[in-house]
C-alpha cells in the first residue's frame, strides 16, 4: 500500500452555484482523504461534481460559486486561508494540471519563461538558477533536447508535449499533491499511455500524492491505488482499486463498470450492393503562400485512399488525431474539394457542384463529434431536426413538419414534447440524439459518424451505440464510423480501416484487425488502448481481467 499519513482531508464539502434558476448544489457534502504518496482517483460522469470538488479545495471556483465545509491540508483549512496564504500553497505545495494542454499554456510566452515563473516566485531563485532548474524539469518530463525546447512557444509543441510541459510546471516546486483533472482526455491513446507512464514514474521518483480526476475507468484501474466514485455531487463508493473493480458494492459503480459498449456487428451478406465508393481519394490543403510569401506549403491530408461501403455495412475508420480520418469522411460527402473518384451507387459525384449535389445530400448525412457545437443555439430542437425537410421536401406544411419532428425525436428516444426547447436545455447525450434525429429524418442511405460518442460519458456512449445499431438495422443504413476509441469501434464496425498520416496502414474485418494486427502501428494502437497492464512501476503484473 503506497499510502502514508493523510495530508489532505476534505470534510463535508458543499459547493453551491447561484444561477438564474436559483441555487444549484454541485457538491453535496463530500468527504475524502488523500494520503502522502498515494494515487487517488475520483471517478464520475460529467456533472458529478468531481472537478468542482477539487476546484473548491483550491479556491478556484467560478465567481458565482461558494464552498462550505473544510479542506484540511496538513492541519490548515484551505477554505479559510487568505488569498496570500493560499498562494503560498497553491502552485507550490499543491499543484494542478488540466485537461486542455492547448489553453492552459500562455501562447505569448516561451515554455521556458512560463516554467521559470513558478520557480522564481515560490523558491526565490535567481534567473540563472531558475533557468537551470527549468531545463532540469523539462528533462525530467522527457522533453527531447530541453536546451533548445526551452525557447519554444506552445504552438510549436504537440498536445502530448504540452501536457508534459504542464506537468513540469506543476512539479516545479516539488508539490506534496498533484491534482490532475482529466489530464489525458484530450490526447491520443498512444500519447495518453506515455503521459500516464510518465506520471507513474515521476510519482515513484518524487513521492508526491496524485489526485486523478477522470471519467475513464480503464485508466483508473491501471493507475490508482484508491478510488472514489462520485455521482450527482455525492461520493457513492470508495475503496481500494482492486476491490472496487473486483466486487463493486454500489449499483452505480456496477453500472459504470458494465458501461463499456459490447456486442459485435456482423458484416452484411455478400450480395449487398456497394453504395458509396471512393477510389484514390486525395485531399490537399495549401498552407500559407500568397502574393509575397512564396509558394504555399502543400499538406496532403488524405493520400490516395480507396474504400467501398456496402449496404448495411459499417466501416470503422481508426487513427490518431491528424491521421486524416475526418477529412476523408468529409471528402466522401463532397464537403471538401478532393481528387479521385467518388461513386454514390452508380453515379459519379466527384465532379458534382453545389447545385448538383443538393438533391443527393439527403442520401448522405453526417453526425459530428461535438454535440454542443453542431446544434445552432438560436433554433429550437424542432427547427433543427426539420431543417433538412425545408430543403428536400419544401412542399410540407408547418404542421406536417412539426409532426415529422415529433416522430423523429421519438425514434431517437427523446420526448417529442421537448421539441420547442433549445439545445442548451439538453444534456450531451440528448444533444447527440438530436443530431442523429436531424440526419435520420431525411431517411439517408449513408451516414458518416464523425466521433459521435467521443464527447460523451461511457454509459451514454453505450446507449448511443445501441441507438445507432437499431437505426441501422431498421433502415438498412450504411455507416462510416470515424473514431479513435477502439472499444466503440469494435462494437460498431464490421470492417476497419486504420489510418495514419493520410494513408491506410491496414484494413480488414474487425475481428482480424483486433485479434491479429499485422502492422506495427496497429499493434501499438491496440496495446495503448486495450492493454490491462498497470502503469505503476512497482506493480507491473497485470491486474486480473474483469469478467
Amino acid at each position: 500500500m503506497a499510502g502514508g499519513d493523510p495530508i489532505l482531508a476534505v470534510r463535508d464539502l458543499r459547493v453551491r452555484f447561484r444561477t438564474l434558476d436559483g441555487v444549484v448544489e454541485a457538491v453535496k457534502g463530500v468527504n475524502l482523504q488523500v494520503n502522502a504518496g498515494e494515487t487517488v482517483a475520483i471517478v464520475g460522469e460529467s456533472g458529478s461534481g468531481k472537478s468542482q470538488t477539487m476546484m473548491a479545495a483550491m479556491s478556484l471556483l467560478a465567481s458565482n460559486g461558494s464552498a462550505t465545509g473544510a479542506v484540511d491540508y496538513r492541519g490548515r483549512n484551505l477554505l479559510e486561508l487568505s488569498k496570500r496564504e493560499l498562494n503560498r500553497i497553491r502552485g507550490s505545495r499543491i499543484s494542478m494540471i488540466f485537461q486542455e494542454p492547448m489553453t492552459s499554456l500562455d501562447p505569448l510566452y516561451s515554455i521556458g519563461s512560463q516554467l521559470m515563473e513558478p520557480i522564481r516566485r515560490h523558491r526565490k531563485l535567481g534567473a540563472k538558477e531558475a533557468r537551470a532548474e527549468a531545463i532540469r524539469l523539462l528533462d525530467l518530463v522527457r522533453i527531447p533536447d530541453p536546451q533548445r525546447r526551452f525557447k519554444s512557444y506552445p504552438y510549436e509543441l504537440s498536445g502530448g508535449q504540452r501536457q508534459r510541459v504542464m506537468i513540469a510546471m506543476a512539479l516545479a516546486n516539488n508539490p506534496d499533491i498533484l491534482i490532475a483533472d482529466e489530464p489525458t482526455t484530450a490526447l491520443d491513446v498512444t500519447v495518453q499511455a506515455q503521459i500516464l507512464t510518465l506520471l507513474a514514474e515521476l510519482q515513484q521518483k518524487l513521492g508526491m500524492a496524485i489526485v486523478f480526476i477522470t471519467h475513464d475507468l480503464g485508466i483508473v484501474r491501471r493507475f490508482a491505488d484508491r478510488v472514489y466514485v462520485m455521482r450527482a455531487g455525492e461520493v457513492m463508493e470508495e475503496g481500494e482499486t482492486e476491490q472496487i473493480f473486483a466486487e463493486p458494492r454500489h449499483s452505480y459503480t456496477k453500472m459504470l463498470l458494465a458501461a463499456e459498449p459490447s456486442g459485435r456487428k456482423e458484416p452484411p451478406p455478400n450480395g449487398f450492393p456497394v453504395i458509396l465508393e471512393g477510389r484514390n481519394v486525395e485531399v490537399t490543403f495549401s498552407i500559407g503562400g500568397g502574393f509575397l510569401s512564396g509558394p504555399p506549403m502543400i499538406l496532403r491530408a488524405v493520400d490516395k485512399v480507396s474504400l467501398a461501403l456496402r449496404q448495411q455495412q459499417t466501416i470503422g475508420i481508426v487513427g490518431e488525431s491528424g491521421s486524416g480520418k475526418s477529412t476523408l469522411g468529409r471528402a466522401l460527402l463532397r464537403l471538401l474539394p478532393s481528387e479521385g473518384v467518388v461513386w454514390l451507387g452508380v453515379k459519379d459525384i466527384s465532379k458534382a457542384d453545389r447545385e448538383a449535389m443538393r438533391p443527393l445530400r439527403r442520401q448522405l448525412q453526417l453526425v459530428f463529434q461535438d454535440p454542443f457545437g453542431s446544434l445552432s443555439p438560436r433554433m429550437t430542437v424542432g427547427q433543427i431536426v426539420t431543417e433538412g425537410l425545408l430543403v428536400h421536401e419544401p412542399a410540407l406544411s408547418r404542421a406536417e413538419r412539426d409532426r415529422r419532428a415529433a416522430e423523429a425525436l421519438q425514434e431517437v428516444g427523446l420526448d417529442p414534447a421537448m421539441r420547442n426547447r433549445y439545445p442548451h436545455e439538453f444534456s450531451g447525450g440528448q444533444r447527440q440524439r438530436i443530431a442523429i434525429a436531424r440526419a435520420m429524418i431525411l431517411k439517408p442511405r449513408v451516414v458518416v459518424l464523425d466521433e459521435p460518442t467521443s464527447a460523451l460519458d461511457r454509459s451514454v456512449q453505450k446507449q448511443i451505440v445501441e441507438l445507432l445499431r437499431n437505426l441501422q438495422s431498421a433502415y438498412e443504413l450504411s455507416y462510416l464510423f470515424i473514431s479513435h476509441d477502439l472499444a466503440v469501434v469494435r462494437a460498431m464496425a464490421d470492417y476497419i480501416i486504420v489510418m495514419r498520416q493520410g494513408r491506410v496502414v491496414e484494413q480488414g474485418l474487425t475481428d482480424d484487425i483486433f485479434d491479429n494486427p499485422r502492422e506495427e502501428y496497429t499493434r501499438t494502437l491496440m496495446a495503448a488502448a486495450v492493454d490491462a497492464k498497470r502503469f505503476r512501476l512497482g506493480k507491473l503484473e497485470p491486474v486480473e481481467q474483469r469478467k
Partner: protein
Amino acid sequence: MTELAITHAVPGRSFWGDAWARLRANRAAMVSLVYLGLMAVACIVGPLLVPHQYTTIYPDYVRIPPSLSPYPKPEMIETALGDVLKRMRVDVKEWRQESDRIFVTITSSREIDERNTRYIDRSDTFDDARVEEKSPDGKTMVMSAAIKQQHFLFGTDNTGRDLLSRTLMAGRVSLAIGLLAGVVAVVIGVVYGATAGFLGGRIDEAMMRVVDVLYSLPFIFFVIMLVVFFGRNFVLMFLAVGAVLWLDMARIVRGQALSIRRQEYVQAAEALGVSRTGILARHIVPNLLGVVVIYMTLLVPQVIILESFLSFLGLGVQEPMTSWGVLISAGAKNIGTANWLLLFPAFFLVSTLFALNFVGDGLRDALDPKDR
C-alpha cells in the same frame, strides 16, 4: 401517440429569454434602460407640453438664469414697463402694482391713442392691457395690464429662447440621428460583413479592401465635401455619419461570420444541402445578432457624439433647429456669463451617453455569459 405529443409541446427558454433574465438582474443596466426610456419620452412629448416654442424669442428675457419661480421678477417689471412706454413715446406720471396687475398713468403733449395698449400687449412681460380712465382732453390716461407669469426652468439663451424646450428639441434631433444613423450603419454593416465573411476567399478579400479604402478617407473632409455639394441638410447628416460608421460594424460582423462559418452546425446545414442564403439567414445572421445588438448600443452614443462634434464645428444641424451639440457649442461660448447654457445640454448629453453605455455593457454580459 404522436397526436398526443403534438398537443403537449413544452415551450423552451430561448436565448433571448435567457438574456433578458440576465439583463434584468443587472441593476445598472435596468436603471439606464428606464432612464433612456424617460429621456426618449421627454424628448418626444416634452416640446409639446412646455409652454414655450423652441423658436420663440423673448426679447425681455435674454439670457436670464434658470429659476423655479416665475418671471418677471419684481425688479424687472419697472425696466420692462419703461421700455414699453418709451416705445409709446409718452411720459410716465406714476405707476403702481395691485396684486398681479399694474396701473400706469401716462401723459403726453398730444392726445393719446387708445390703440397704444397694443404696445403693452406686445411685450413679453404684460398681457391683457386695458384703458381704465381717460382725461377729457385725452392727454392723460390710466392703463392697466396683467403681468404675464412665465416659467423658464432652464433659463433662456442669448436671443431669449427658452432653454428647456430647446434642450428637449435638441434631444429629439440627437436621439433621432443617433438611432437612424445607427440603424443605417448596422444594416449596411451586417449585410456587407456577413456576406464577406460567409462567402470568404477572393470575394471577402475584395470586399474588405473596399472597406480599407473607405477607412482611409478622412471623415471631416468627407462631410465637408458632402455639405459643399448638397448643402446643409438634416438627412445628409444621417447619411454621412451612417456611411462612415458602418465600416467598423462590417469588420466586426465579418470576423464573427468567419468564425460562425467554421461552426459545426453550419457544416451540418451544408451537409443537409441547405443553400447559401438559407445558411446565411437561418444560421449566420441569427447567431450574429447578439454582437450586433451590443455594438449598436455602443454605436448610438458614438453617432450622437459625432453629430455633436459636427454641429459644434458648424457643419451639422442649422438654426433654429438645434441639437445637443449645437447647444453645447453655444454654451461653451458663454461659459463665463451664462454657464447654464452649457450645463443643461451637457448634462442631458452625458447622462444619455452614460445610460447607453451601461445598457451596452449589460447587454454584452447578458448575451455573452462567460464566467467573469
